[in-house]
Structure formats: structure tokens, C-alpha cells
């Protein structure tokens, strides 16, 4: 084994320039892939983080029938007790309660259909990205009752500003029409039209009263996780805690399917693009490996004549390819990993490219994009490249079996 590696290693350096060019081609293709994929992963994580904090957490508990026909009467009972038990689960950093409903917001300037979201102000202030996106007035606070925050687009449409009156109309749990007068406490702007034009947030206790839910019933309980990657374990643990068969415990992907689909699609297309780039660079490598074998046909014929098994020579070609692949992978991981790590720490302001207001699936994208490097990403991409480079040597290896020793040595 040691000799095989020695011969392979020295053989590579017989044509130093070619080896360096090949390693560089692999390295730079991988570096680009590492950087782009890490930036994408960072964006997805940030997007998921913001969406889950603004909505119902990484793991959501709601009535089993709510997804099919959202209505306030499909609520989760004994919310306080459940939250207490769920909050103790390993990996859960916090819980939140929401009441979601549909309604109409009316002012002297007109009426607009809106999404009503009743939230716990003290928890939302600490977790929801909306709290950081206030452009006028203030976010809801503990003790608030008949107060609401609205998006800037909705405020513009209904000519609202902090202190102005707003009538919210909806149907309660019994199906009766209810109307409540509230005052605008603040205006937020996320950059997402779906949020800024239609979302109205009110305090949870006010929302529960208005919709006739009572003090301990909510439409959603959300669990915020310390590490979103732990959600499978938390899901299982939460399902074990919840005894009520009417309560479903769902991952965020089922609660915000548009966002999950977007990420799956974007990640897939990103990987395909990077895959094509690496695949194209593999053509260069394939050609190089094949050339290096064809150039050494006589040398291989001599070794076969001496009694070397064709498998041993194939192993040598494979080892040479893997060494080139490993060199390229190491170069790529360093060259791509360092800037990606820098972007993870400092972030990259993408507003010059995409403007200040970019939203995906109704959620505003933070234009300061931080990459997300992980061992899985580095090992996965590096391993894939090494394996792909190894695979490119298969044809060259096949040629060894076709060497006619006597013809070559004649």
C-alpha cells in the first residue's frame, strides 16, 4: 500500500504543471461551490429562523383539522399546561402562543381584508423579527389591550398612524360577527407585501376575548428550538407529551409549506448548478487522467510483463486520481471555506444587488446574508468531488486491461 501511494505520488509529479493545473481546476470549482452553497444555506437558515419566530415556531401544535380548514373554533385547549410541559423538553428554548384569524380592518379611509394575529407581546418582543422592524410608534408591550400594530402598506392604504383608531371585524368561535375598536400602537415594515399589507397583530388576551376563545385556548402553540436541526427529536418528544389525539404536532415545513418548498427548490437548483460546474471541470480531469495513462502505455506494458497484475495497475491509476482529487478538495475547501467563514462572521450586504426589500414566500429576507458552513457541507462536497474524480479514472483503468503487452513492447 505504501509503495502504491509512493509510485502514484511520484508519478503525479512527473508532469508537475499538468498536475497543478488539474488540482487547481478541481480546487477552484469546489471553492466556488463551497462558497455559494454556504451562502445559500446561511440565507435559508436566516429565512427559516425569521419565519418561525414570526409565525408558530420550529415545531407547531395545533388542532388536527386546522390545516385543512383554518378556523378559530379549531383551537388547542389547556395551552398553559401544555406549554409548561413542552418548555421543559430538551432542545426547546422557548414556547409561544398564537391566535390566528381572518378579518377586516376598517378606518375612515376604507376597509381591507387582513390576517389577525394575536400574540404575547413580551415573548414576541424578544423573538419576533417584527419587533425590530418598527418604523413608527412602538411594538406591543405587556399589559396592552385594545392596541394593534399594522404593516406600513396597510397603514398607507387605511391612512393609519400611531394613535389612530381602527376597527377590526371577524367571526368568533360561534360564527357570530364581532367588531372591536383598537388604536394603532405602531407600524412595521418588513419589505414583504404579504406581511406589510395584510398583517395586524394584537395582544393575545385581547384576541382571545374578541374571538370568544377564553383564556386558555389558542390556535397555535409554537416551540422555538435551540438548534433547528434537532426538530426531529423534539417532534418525537413533543408527540409523546401531547396526549390529546385532536392536537397535531407539526414541523415548520408543514406549517409554512410555501417556504419549505421554496428552500427545497432553490437548494436543489443551487446544487444542480454547482454539480454542473464540477461536472464540467471533471471533463478536464478525465482527459488528464486518460492522457497520463495513454502516455505510459509502454511503462504499464513493462510492468504487466514483469508480472504485475492489471488490478495493481488499476489501483495505481485510481490512487493517482484520488490523490489529485484529495489535493483539489483540500485546495477547494480552504479557498472556498475561508471566504465563506468570513461571510459567516461578518455577513455580506446584498442590498446593492437585490435592493432593500426582498421577500420570499411572504417573509422578508435579511439583506445582510451570513453564510453557514458546516462539517456536513465541507465533508459532503469534498467527498463528492474526491469520489467523482476517482470515478473519472474508471475508463483509464479499463484501458489497462486492454494493453497488448507484446504489441506495445515490440
Amino acid at each position, binding site marked *: 500500500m505504501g509503495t502504491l501511494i509512493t*509510485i502514484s505520488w511520484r508519478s503525479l509529479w512527473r508532469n508537475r504543471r499538468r498536475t497543478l493545473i488539474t488540482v487547481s481546476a478541481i480546487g477552484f470549482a469546489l471553492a466556488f461551490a463551497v462558497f455559494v452553497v454556504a451562502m445559500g444555506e446561511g440565507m435559508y437558515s436566516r429565512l427559516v429562523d425569521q419565519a418561525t419566530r414570526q409565525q408558530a415556531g420550529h415545531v407547531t401544535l395545533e388542532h388536527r383539522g386546522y390545516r385543512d380548514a383554518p378556523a378559530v373554533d379549531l383551537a388547542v385547549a389547556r395551552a398553559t399546561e401544555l406549554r409548561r410541559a413542552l418548555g421543559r423538553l430538551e432542545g426547546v428554548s422557548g414556547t409561544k402562543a398564537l391566535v390566528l384569524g381572518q378579518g377586516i380592518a376598517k378606518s375612515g379611509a376604507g376597509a381591507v381584508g387582513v390576517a389577525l394575529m394575536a400574540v404575547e407581546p413580551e415573548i414576541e418582543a424578544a423573538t419576533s423579527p417584527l419587533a425590530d422592524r418598527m418604523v413608527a410608534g412602538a411594538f406591543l408591550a405587556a399589559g396592552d389591550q385594545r392596541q394593534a400594530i399594522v404593516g406600513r402598506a396597510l397603514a398607507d392604504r387605511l391612512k393609519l398612524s400611531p394613535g389612530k383608531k381602527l376597527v377590526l371585524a371577524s367571526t368568533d368561535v360561534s360564527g357570530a360577527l364581532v367588531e372591536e375598536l383598537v388604536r394603532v400602537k405602531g407600524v412595521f415594515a418588513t419589505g414583504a407585501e404579504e406581511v406589510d399589507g395584510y398583517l395586524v397583530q394584537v395582544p393575545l388576551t385581547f384576541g382571545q376575548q374578541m374571538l370568544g376563545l377564553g383564556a386558555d385556548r389558542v390556535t397555535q402553540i409554537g416551540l422555538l428550538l435551540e438548534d433547528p436541526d434537532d426538530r426531529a427529536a423534539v417532534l418525537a418528544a413533543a408527540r409523546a407529551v401531547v396526549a390529546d389525539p385532536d392536537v397535531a404536532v407539526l414541523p415548520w415545513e408543514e406549517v409554512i409549506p410555501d417556504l419549505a418548498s421554496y428552500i427545497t427548490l432553490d437548494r436543489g437548483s443551487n446544487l444542480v448548478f454547482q454539480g454542473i460546474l464540477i461536472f464540467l471541470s471533471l471533463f478536464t480531469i478525465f482527459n488528464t487522467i486518460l492522457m497520463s495513462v495513454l502516455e505510459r502505455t509502454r*511503462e504499464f506494458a*513493462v*510492468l504487466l510483463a514483469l508480472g504485475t497484475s492489471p488490478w495493481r495497475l488499476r489501483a495505481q491509476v485510481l490512487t493517482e486520481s484520488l490523490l489529485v482529487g484529495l489535493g483539489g478538495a483540500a485546495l477547494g475547501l480552504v479557498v472556498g471555506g475561508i471566504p465563506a467563514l468570513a461571510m459567516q462572521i461578518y455577513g455580506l450586504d446584498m442590498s446593492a444587488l437585490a435592493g432593500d426589500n426582498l421577500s420570499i414566500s411572504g417573509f422578508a429576507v435579511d439583506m445582510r446574508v451570513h453564510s453557514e458552513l458546516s462539517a456536513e457541507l465541507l465533508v459532503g462536497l469534498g467527498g463528492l468531488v474526491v469520489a467523482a474524480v476517482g470515478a473519472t479514472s474508471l475508463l483509464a483503468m479499463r484501458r489497462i486491461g486492454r494493453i497488448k503487452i507484446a504489441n506495445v*513492447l515490440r
Partner: protein
Amino acid sequence: MTPIIRVEDVTKEYGQNGITVRALAGVTLELAAGAFAAVAGPSGSGKTTLLNLVSGLDRPTSGRVWLEGRELGGLSAAELSRVRLRRIGFVFQDYNLLPVLTAAENAEYVLMMQGVPKKQRRERVRELLALVGLAGLERRFPRELSGGQQQRVAIARAIAAEPALVLADEPTANLDSKTGGALLDLMASLNQEKGITFLFSSHDQAVLQRAKRLITLKDGAIDGDGAPH
């Protein structure tokens, strides 16, 4: 006593551009163990083809070849490979050393393929390189050696595993007469002292005169067989 090589009515034909070329035509011969024999003949007479068939590098169109009583025609490519590894040493006209290995590593190559332990091969190769007059040059790469020195390494490689037979195709063709003569001295002494059978080909009359037996080929057939004049 079983001859080390037995060739019986061997014919070898090659197809070239739709034309069949007969390289060997009904060759029959035997070579005893311990022989120091040469194959002579002009270019195209079939010398290399005969050596290739004897070593199992090529298969005859008709006829049969035995090595140490074992018929090569019945062996698979892998079995032939093992026979070459264990029983035959090769010396080529162009030396054909592996350029990425040092003199010692080249000489050690066949032993390594045979799975001989490292310590044992190192000791054996050190002795061999001293025997072929290359002591002190063990760590030199082929490009750092003269043609004669490279051919000596090739001989060390050929005899390292103590094969029954060493086949040398024009071993002195690329060497000056003095170096070529020294190489033949070395081969002859290995033949005498270690009993290794040598079968080599050459055009050079001076070289051929050194053989104890001279097989002359002409147009693919044996034209003469006996002691050189």
C-alpha cells in the same frame, strides 16, 4: 530431465492491414535448465516473437509452448502473469526501468509484487546491486544513471526473485561495446554461479559469440542451432 523451455511446431501470424504476416513458422526447440543461449537473426526473423511466446506475453497461432513442463497455452492471463512474476526475469533493450523509482526500488519491484517482506527485499537488493557493480548508487533515479548502469539495474530486477529463466531481448543494443561486454560478463557469471538460465537475442556477432548455444532464425524458422563458431 524436463527442459526449462519446450517449443513444439509453433507458428505465429500477425494480421497487418489485411495482410497476414508469418513471424514464426513451425519452430520446435528445447532449452535445458542452466543454459546460456542466444537467439540470432536479422530484423524480422522472429527473435522477439519467440521470446514473447516463451514468456507467455503472446500466444502462438498454432503449436505449443511449455515452461518447466507446464504448457502455457492452457493458462489464463492471470496465471501467465503469475508465472512471469515467479519464474521469469526480463531484460529489455530500452532498460524500461520505472522512472519514478530509485535504482534500489526498481530492483526491488518484482520482490515487492511477490509480497516479500520489506526488510528481506532491502537486504537482497543491496547484495544484488553490489553484485552488478552498483553499490552506492541505490538511491539514484534512472535519469541519474548511464545506459549501462540502467541495464545493470534491469538485470538486478530480473534476477532479484531468483527466476528459473531470464529473457533478454537485445540487452546490449543501446550500449557501447565495452559496456555491452561488461554486461555479458555479468550475465555469464550469474549463469555460472547461480545457475540461472539465460536466453537472449542480439544482432551483434560479438555478443552472440559469448553464448554457449546459438539458435539462428531466418524468416521465422530455425536456420541453425548449436555452439557459436
